[in-house]
């Protein structure tokens, strides 16, 4: 009886969560869908002088000035080309709205806790403290990112 009650509690706490997946070069990433405000095509931003290269500039999103970060440049993945298929994920991170350029958006996926593995200690451009885990789905591997935490860091130079 008690065990069953625990199982119910666990099921409530560890509900499967939904992730928006996108590609950067050959890698596939996932972020919490609840942080995504909208997905737009890429438009030429207004350059900001002396900003890091991965900050492409700012765009007008319905009257709001939003900075655009190119994750491919930030992570050094893929070639930073801009064409009609380049996608910008607009993230709503509570205090601020930020646009993120990615190669393509794949789909929205539901991952249950048992599909998420711990990240091994590796040396990568992405600080492993922002990787919440590695999601597995069939033979795909998703790198799950704590996007709010990542965007809030000093190295992103957004604040």
């Amino acid at each position, binding site marked *: 009886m008690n065990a069953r009650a625990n199982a119910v509690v666990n099921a409530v706490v560890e509900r499967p969560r939904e992730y928006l997946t996108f590609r950067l070069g050959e890698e596939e990433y996932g972020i919490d869908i609840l942080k995504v405000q909208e997905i737009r095509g890429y438009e*030429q931003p*207004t350059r900001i*002088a*002396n900003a890091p290269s991965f900050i492409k500039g700012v765009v007008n999103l319905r009257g709001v000035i939003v900075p655009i970060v190119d994750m491919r440049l930030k992570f050094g993945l893929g070639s930073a080309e801009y064409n009609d298929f380049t996608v910008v994920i607009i993230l709503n991170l509570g205090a601020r709205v930020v646009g993120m350029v990615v190669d393509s958006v794949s789909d929205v996926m539901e991952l249950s806790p048992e599909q998420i593995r711990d990240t091994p200690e590796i040396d990568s451009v992405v600080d492993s403290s922002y990787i919440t885990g590695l999601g597995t789905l069939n033979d795909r591997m998703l790198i799950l990112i704590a996007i709010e935490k990542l965007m809030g860091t000093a190295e992103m130079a957004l604040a």
Partner: protein
Amino acid sequence: MSDTHTSESSGDVFDLSQFHGVFYEEAGENLTSMEALLLETDESNADDESLNAIFRCAHSIKGGAATFGFQDVADLTHVMETLLDRLRRRELAITSGMIDTLLESGDVLKHLLASRQSGTDAGIDCTELVARIGAFAHGTGAAAPAAVAPVAAATAAPVAASMTEAPAAASASPAAAPLAPGERVLEIAIGPLDQPRLADNVVELFGEIPGLGTIEPSDDGKPDAAQTRHFRVVSTVTDSDLLDLFSFHVSREQVSIREVGAAATAVATPVATPVATPEADQTFGLFEDLPEPVAAGVQAPAAVVVAAPKAEAPRAADRAAPASANLESSTIRVPTEKVDQLINLVGEMVITQAMLAQTGRGLDAVVHQAMATALTDLERNTRLLQEAVMAIRMIPMTAVFNRFPRMLRDLSGRLGKKLELHTIGEDTELDKGLIEKITDPLTHLVRNSADHGIEMPADRIAAGKPEHGTVTLAAAHQGGSIVIEVRDDGRGLNRAKLLAKARERGLSVSDSMSDTEVYGLIFAPGFSTAAEVTDVSGRGVGMDVVKRNITSLGGSVEIDSVEGQGMRVSVRLPLTLAIMDGMSVGVADETYIVPLASVVESIHMTASDVKSVGGTGRVVEVRNEYLPLIRLDELFDVPRSVEHNGGIMIVVEAEGGRIALLVDDLIGQHQVVVKNLEANYRKVPGVSGATILGDGRVALILDVSWLIRRVRH
């Protein structure tokens, strides 16, 4: 908003009428909030907060009324204030009788003010009311609730029969909403009804006729013991027309109408309904489209009966009509979020329109002539709409500055000093929200300058200064901020005195502190350098509040002073939303905005005009003066595909310095909405904000002050 200019009365020389509008508006607001507060008050457990708030409402109205010489209003509010003061001091316990009487007084005040506003005599005698409130205030108001009771009884008595009796005299009408000329407030009782629901049909029908007015139940939708429903109607049509309308659903004798929208002493004109009227539906000319045939014989009695009381009505109406103009207001108060939403939406529309125009240009003008014309119209209308919407939020500083001449005049009388006020830049537009919030801190600063800063005339002459002390208020847009300065040519701050005072207060200070730090001490709570406390200032409350208020707006305060010569307090506020005149300039493929206010001139230039100093520094000669030159393309690292020589040199000025900016070309001048970059990004050096261009792109606004500071260091 505290009304400093109404604190003292006289106004014989000064034309006060320009402030009347503000007073009526503020008084109207005060009355409304007083009514709301009174209605919320729980007799058994009234809280201090609301009692104080009610007191403040009455107090402000009294202050204003006394200033403008509205004796009747001042007298009435004076007794109210006396009563409220005793209530808030807990010397008396509030009773429902008091609340009723106070509400009644509020209504009478509304009428008095309305008649003042429309320039007519209200013809209201408040003596009885004043006496009644006075009795309460002296704790002898036991009889008063009884005096109110008949009024309540009269309103409650529902049946038509009661309408033939004159209602209790001298009761103020419960008119709450402002009435347009010709409108009357009526209390209508319908019943007794077998099916009280029928009354709802009447309401529905009433609502369906456009222009008739408003109807609302005054009984929470439930019939009373006598199966009668009560409604409150505001309408311009006559009683007989109303009766005709109602008779579609209920018989005429079930309806009784009583006018309550007259001035307090005006006897309400009851309209008795003909008892003998047959049940048949009746139509007058007003509703001719109704099919039922009209029996001529039936119409007659109704017309006669209605006509009789109406003969009485016009005279009452003569007096009531101006009062019914009840605090007519030419402004609407709208939450600023609504305006912000409008501004954003219009901004979006401008962009969509620009896109349409772009697409339209690709079309054959001959084939799509109608389309082209429509697009041109759209463009013009969008532009006008945008201008209009943006103008809503912006109001000139005049709104604040206007309060000060009056205040200084009063102060000079009270302090025995000679004061002059200069204002500079009163046309500088500032966001409405900021204007409202900056008024109190500025009032404080001006008062401080007058009281502490400016010396007595004799002292001034002894110091070799003109007898008149000058207080200067200056406002200007400066690098994405608005800077409002309060300057005086008084005695300035005394460093030693400040330090001594700070030590006395136990603040940790040292002689090595910089002047700015020492001056900053006056913002410490409880810090006052005035030798004695006056009724104007010197109690040591104020400067810390000023600082806190300004900081809470995201602004800063700076103090600058030269002892013996005066002091300057600069309040710098961010422009969260402001329209600015900008000059858009092109640098390679990029567009930047230079605030027009800082542009001195623009000059065509060739490469040979530029001279170098010490290798990297560049200067340019403009009108016999060498100015530092900043190349925008270098400063902002603008990518260039082709080398560009020459260009346009824009001479800009800020913070007392001048520099020349080199750009490729001038694109045009236009008003821009300043958006801040910090909301989602961060502060960018050399950029005070951003704006959205007509094509939807973002352009950065140059921070001229920063550029000038950069050259200096």
